[in-house]
């Protein structure tokens, strides 16, 4: 069978060799680039347009003119977005800290297990369940079965379920490269377990732990589908944005200017962070 196809291939190859190598490949690359540019445009044109239209008198019309600062003035005069923003900031900070802690302690232990497959699969399971389903399931479980009163704590749990798998992945990637013989050497030299962890493992894991913290913060800061169901009476910034976008047309201008301000702060930070992360990972 294989020899037959081989000889066939060889015959075909002789015929198609020249023009397929020259002609097809360049057209292919152009096509690939066009696809990428189109998809990236679909991501970034809305962001750009959001910033432009935040200066428009009526942001939902197609024309940005006349330009005005009214939306920002309205945003300044309306303080209702401040509590959700504050809640989001400290809650995401908490999620990030807890993610860093759990991911470090559990992640480094997982890499020392003989058969980590099942544990990793269970850890990553939330990535295979849509956010809305997780939210609805946790809601029904906590609210109607356990009959608990939902609030910040349940939003926290929902966001933890979302953010932790990503943080764990990051730690696992770094921890699996760690050479365990370093620890043995330290033990032979008389270092206590705590010293071995703090002086030898920690410096190697540190970029992963910081990365986990930043991932945790960003993922939690923008989490909507789980928080939406688990909110109780609380409101985070994505829930506020969703409520404005989904129901009240007249409130839309506010989220245009609010999101523009937040993007103006977070985009450069994210850009710089990921830049450093990828360049560093590339070098190591």
């Amino acid at each position, binding site marked *: 069978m294989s020899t037959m196809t081989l000889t066939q291939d060889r015959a075909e190859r002789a015929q198609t060799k020249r023009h397929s190598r020259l002609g097809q490949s360049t057209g292919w690359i152009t096509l690939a680039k066009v696809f*990428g540019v189109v998809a990236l445009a679909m991501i970034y044109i809305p962001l750009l347009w959001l910033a432009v239209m935040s200066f428009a008198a009526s*942001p939902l*019309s*197609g024309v940005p003119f006349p330009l005005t600062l009214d939306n920002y003035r309205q945003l300044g005069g309306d303080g209702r977005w401040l509590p959700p923003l504050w809640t989001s900031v400290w809650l995401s900070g908490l999620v990030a800290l807890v993610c860093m802690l759990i991911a470090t302690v559990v992640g480094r232990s997982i890499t020392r297990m003989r058969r980590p497959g099942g544990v990793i699969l269970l850890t990553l399971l939330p990535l295979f369940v849509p956010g809305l389903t997780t939210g609805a399931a946790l809601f029904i479980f906590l609210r109607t079965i356990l009959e608990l009163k939902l609030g910040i704590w349940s939003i926290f749990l929902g966001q933890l379920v979302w953010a932790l798998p990503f943080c764990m992945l990051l730690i696992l990637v770094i921890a699996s490269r760690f050479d365990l013989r370093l620890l043995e050497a330290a033990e032979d030299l008389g270092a206590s377990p705590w010293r071995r962890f703090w002086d030898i493992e920690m410096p190697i894991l540190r970029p992963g732990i910081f990365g986990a913290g930043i991932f945790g913060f960003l993922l939690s800061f923008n989490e909507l589908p789980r928080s939406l169901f688990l909110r109780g009476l609380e409101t985070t910034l994505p829930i506020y944005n969703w409520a404005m976008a989904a129901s009240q047309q007249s409130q839309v201008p506010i989220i245009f200017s609010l999101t523009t301000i937040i993007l103006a702060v977070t985009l450069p930070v994210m850009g710089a962070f990921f830049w450093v992360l990828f360049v560093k990972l590339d070098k190591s």
Partner: protein
Amino acid sequence: MTSLSRSDTSAPSPRRPFAKRLLDGLSPSRLAVPVFLLSWSFLVLAPLVVIVLFSFLQVKAYRVVYVPTLDTWVSLIDSGRWMTAVRTLRIGLTMTVIELLLAFPFALWLAKGCKSKTFKSVIITLLTIPFFLDASSRIIVWRSILGTNGAINTALMSLGITDSPIDWLLYSEFAVHFGLLGTHFPTMVFPIFMSIALIDDDYIQASQDLGAGPAQTLFNIILPMALPGIVAGIVFTLVPLMAAFVEPQLLGGGFVDLLGNSVNSALQQLKYPTAAALSTVVVALLGLCLVVLILVTRKRHDMASMFMAIRR
């Protein structure tokens, strides 16, 4: 306890402070994983089991009635809600195929064609940032681009290409597809990019040296070796698509009702068993797609290698 006493006896210096000796003895690696797995199962697995069971229960006067019944499922089928499931599956699969067709060539070029490291880092950064953006605000902007008096229609009319605005651009299935396209592109590109980047250049070089054309190299070398990444890309794109609710709600204008919106509205109307049943449908459909995917790709790769590809 046992580990504590053992380390006490073998401690090299007995003069170390007690607190430090305690820290030495606590072996987090032995405790951490079981404790974590237990609480994680409680948070992740238990709710999923509960919603399946819950869809066979009823809620009367805000109290759960623990008597099994098929009422919820019967009413779901009678009210034609199953059409929503079919529509969700159709749109989810369509978008997954579109993303795959767009992402594969791009990922291949990014991994093997793009020579500049700086450029590569820029693109990867650009693809990472969307994971951390607020969904509602970036989707609602499309209204001002696609609407009847939006940017595209205004441009078309002022250029004299059309006399009246094109109304199917917004509040239609087209708009929903359009909105989903950008949101779900990175999840498809990343796994494919990583699996292709892992392919040793020597294989490709050898294939070319042996006289294979680009198409042969693609189908005999690159595709089989990138398959784990492709599977991962399909999974990570299909999962969120099956429960998308922001795009259909904001761009569908009530015409495109997907499972995600149905779950949302059922919970708002306090119809908990209905929401549970709809969520069960989401999970079941996803499971079905995954099983089909595994059966299709089983010949070449097991799931373990898929995770290896993600872990890189």
